[in-house]
């Protein structure tokens, strides 16, 4: 063993300490970098040399740079991210919808509905006075305006959901591409360094996967070569560098649906922001939008039916108070033309209907109850009658093509007051004008009567139920988000506890490696002095 060996040992100490300082510095520099996993230098003794006295150590060498990373915690983080993403989107959407129905702040319909009801009482109290009649028209107008504003708010939220569905899809695609790119880089880097890991690239990829899982439910597995395969359902979204992106395509009904490789996977998306948005869209359409439209349609139907029975101050009768309900037709057939009219308002259930065809027959189903209303052989040009509605379909239809008939879709946006003050039918007879208020009293009675198209609830009860449902959905979403957030925080704490950088710890490491560096330098100095002593002999 020559004296020069001591130089080598000192040099190895210098290199190792310097590397330790680099790693410590890197940790300190990334203390706030999202997804960064703290790194640690792994040192080991260099291979010893055999001497007469035994094996003699030859200093230190760097075995590797370890990344403090726990795959189990990370997987929990991904799953939790999906749940949190979903519940956050749901909670945000429901909170906004709730504001639309916030009767506690004077928003919502109950005040306007009640004032409309009160105005009918004013007419019943003074049927011959025009001011009472004008008040009723004004209150009815306000009632419709409030309903329109509420529907507008709900539609705006639904539009935003559509826009955000598109945005989220783009973000997902962008993340998938970057994960694919990182797969490539990691493959490239790690194939050149056997046993070593591209720590920082892996950190980046894992951060992207975490971000992705906040948007959609995915799973992933790591290949032996270090690349990850990202999976949604049965679809491989990323495989090495190959990416299969999502596309959000707007359907005939104006709603976006999500496709991968040409297949509609909308119904399989159950978590993440995208899952939350799709779920919120379903809830809002099913509860708030449908409920509000059904309530307004029911009010219009019942009041119109009774109003037609009465007589205005001008002696006219058979007038609707509101413009009559119109049917909205969604024709999803290629070649057929469809027309539909309401033949008997009294029979209208206020359900929406789907007419679907097979090779020879048509089937009418209620979209609300799912029950079959009627069916029969399809003959072009024939009229299909059900629940007070006549539908005429002409032309060829193909199997599984359908037509949707809705008495609700346009009911809020297309309704106006159809009478002037003189035509308000407070009287039950043309010969008992102007102070006969019997028809007005009958209309007042409607407000206090269970309505069959509202499941036996009164107008007020139905609306109250709608507010309660909205509040419950919002409350549940908020609670769920809080719960998921707490869980996420806990998992993040576990992750941070293992992988997070502690500046105090790094400060200690800094001193540790600084001192080691100084000591290593001292070894070299001593070796140098020894050499000098020998040279000067």
């Amino acid at each position, binding site marked *: 063993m020559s004296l020069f060996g001591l130089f080598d040992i000192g040099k190895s100490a210098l290199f190792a300490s310097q590397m330790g300082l680099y790693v410590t510095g890197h940790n300190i520099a990334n203390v706030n970098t999202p997804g960064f996993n703290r790194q640690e230098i792994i040192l080991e003794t260099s291979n010893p040399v055999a001497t007469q006295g035994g094996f003699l150590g030859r200093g230190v060498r760097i075995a590797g740079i370890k990344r403090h990373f726990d795959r189990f915690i990370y997987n929990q983080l991904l799953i939790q991210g999906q749940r949190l993403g979903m519940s956050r989107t749901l909670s945000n959407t429901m909170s906004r919808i709730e504001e639309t129905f916030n009767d506690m702040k004077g928003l919502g319909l109950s005040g306007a509905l009640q004032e409309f009801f009160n105005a009918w009482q004013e007419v019943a109290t003074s049927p011959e006075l025009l001011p009472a009649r004008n008040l009723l028209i004004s209150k009815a107008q306000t009632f419709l305006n409030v309903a329109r504003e509420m529907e507008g708010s709900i539609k705006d939220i639904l539009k935003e959901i559509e826009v955000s569905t598109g945005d989220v899809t783009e973000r997902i695609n962008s993340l998938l591409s970057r994960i694919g790119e990182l797969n490539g880089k990691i493959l490239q880097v790690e194939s050149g360094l056997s046993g070593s890991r591209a720590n920082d690239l892996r950190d980046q990829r894992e951060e992207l996967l975490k971000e992705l899982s906040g948007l959609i439910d995915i799973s992933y597995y790591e290949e032996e070569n270090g690349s990850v395969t990202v999976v949604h359902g049965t679809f491989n979204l990323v495989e090495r560098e190959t990416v299969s992106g999502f596309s959000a395509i707007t359907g005939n009904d104006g709603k976006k649906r999500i496709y991968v490789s040409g297949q509609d996977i909308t119904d399989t998306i159950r978590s993440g922001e995208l899952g939350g948005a799709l779920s919120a869209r379903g809830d809002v359409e099913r509860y708030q939008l449908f409920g509000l439209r059904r309530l307004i349609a029911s009010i219009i139907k019942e009041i119109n039916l009774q109003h037609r029975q009465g007589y205005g101050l001008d002696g006219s009768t058979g007038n609707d108070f509101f413009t009559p309900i119109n049917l909205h037709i969604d024709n999803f057939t290629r070649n057929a033309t469809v027309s539909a009219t309401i033949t008997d308002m009294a029979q209208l259930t206020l359900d929406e209907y789907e007419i679907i065809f097979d090779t020879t027959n048509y089937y009418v189903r209620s979209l609300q109850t799912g029950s079959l209303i009627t069916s029969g052989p399809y003959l072009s040009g024939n009229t299909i009658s059900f629940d007070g509605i006549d539908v005429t379909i002409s032309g060829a239809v193909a199997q599984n093509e359908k037509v949707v008939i809705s008495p609700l879709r346009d009911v809020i946006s297309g309704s106006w007051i159809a009478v002037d003050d003189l035509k308000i039918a407070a009287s039950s007879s043309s010969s008992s004008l102007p102070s006969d208020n019997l028809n007005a009293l009958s209309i007042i009675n409607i407000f206090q009567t269970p309505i069959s198209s509202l499941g036996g609830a009164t107008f007020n009860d139905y609306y109250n139920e709608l507010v309660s449902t909205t*509040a419950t959905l919002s409350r549940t979403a908020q609670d769920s988000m809080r719960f998921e957030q707490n869980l996420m925080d806990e998992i993040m704490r576990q992750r941070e506890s293992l992988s*997070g950088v502690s500046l*105090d710890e790094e400060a200690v490491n800094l001193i540790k490696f600084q001192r080691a560096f100084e000591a290593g330098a001292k070894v070299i100095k001593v070796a140098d002095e020894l050499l000098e002593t020998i040279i000067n002999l």
Partner: protein
Amino acid sequence: MRISSSMIYEQIKKGLQTSLEELSRRNEELATGKRILQPSDDVTGSSRAIDYRVNISSLEQYIRNSTTGEIQFQFTDRILGSVSDSLLELKKLTSFGINPSDPQSRQFNAEQAARLRDYLLQLSNSRLSQRYIFSGFMTSQESFIYNPVTRKYEYQGDLGERNIPLSNGAVTVNIPGSKVFSTFLRGAAPSQVSDGTVVNYSQALDPFSGVNTITIEIGAPGDPEYDTFTVTNIMDMANVLSFAWRYQDIDGSSISETKAMHRIEALSSLIDDARTQVLERQSENATRQVFLAQETERIKALLNNLKNNLSKTEDADLTEVAVEIKKAETGLEAMRLASTKILSGSLLDFLK
């Protein structure tokens, strides 16, 4: 547990955020005075609150309705009082004014009867808020008009009774004129006048208008003083009386003194019937008025209850809120102080 730097930052951030959220929430409660700011704060509470509000609004409307009714009742009562007084005056004329030998007295009675007739007509056509209150539903037209062809007073209204909605049913606020001013035979009518001449009363009711026509037949057909005439209402009666004191029929043609005196005497008992009827209507009106007053009181009590319940459900306890705000502020302050201490020190600060 190993603690990383970002755990400390995150913990502090979360703590500050929670304290600020609490403070903001309490401040909003204080500003609005409400405990429930949105339905999801208390789903059942908000549902009850909406229900209370709807009911409060309804009851307030019922009170407005009852005010309209009350005004009409008071007005009707005054009119019916005047009708009753006028009938009493007319009765006095028939009781004390039968003195054929005194033309001046007859003239006076004739004029008084005409005045009362016109006044009664005026009363029957009383208007409240632009409507003729005794016309049933047909309030845009006068209840009674004088028909110059038949020389009779005719009812133009119907039997419509307007109900005003209340929380517990409804109350009828008007009395059709035919039920007030029409003449009806009530109980046994006299069968002869004071000189022994037979008098016969018969009546026929029109069920659609409520108008009751009374035919009075004095003497037997063929008698020189045989007389028959009809009246349908108290204005007709006053009219017949007014002409009778002038020894005239209602068309101005002369009639004998005997016939005139018979007419006056025969109508005298009908005036009593008419007055009884008006008093009954007045009593009916008063009963409705009392019912309405009681109902209004009940509604007001209910309204108070509901307002209390609404307040209990949705209003914040301001003392409690103020205390909570203080607590939140103190918590926030402590959090900030602690954060300053925690964030200011790291080992790096001590490495000089």
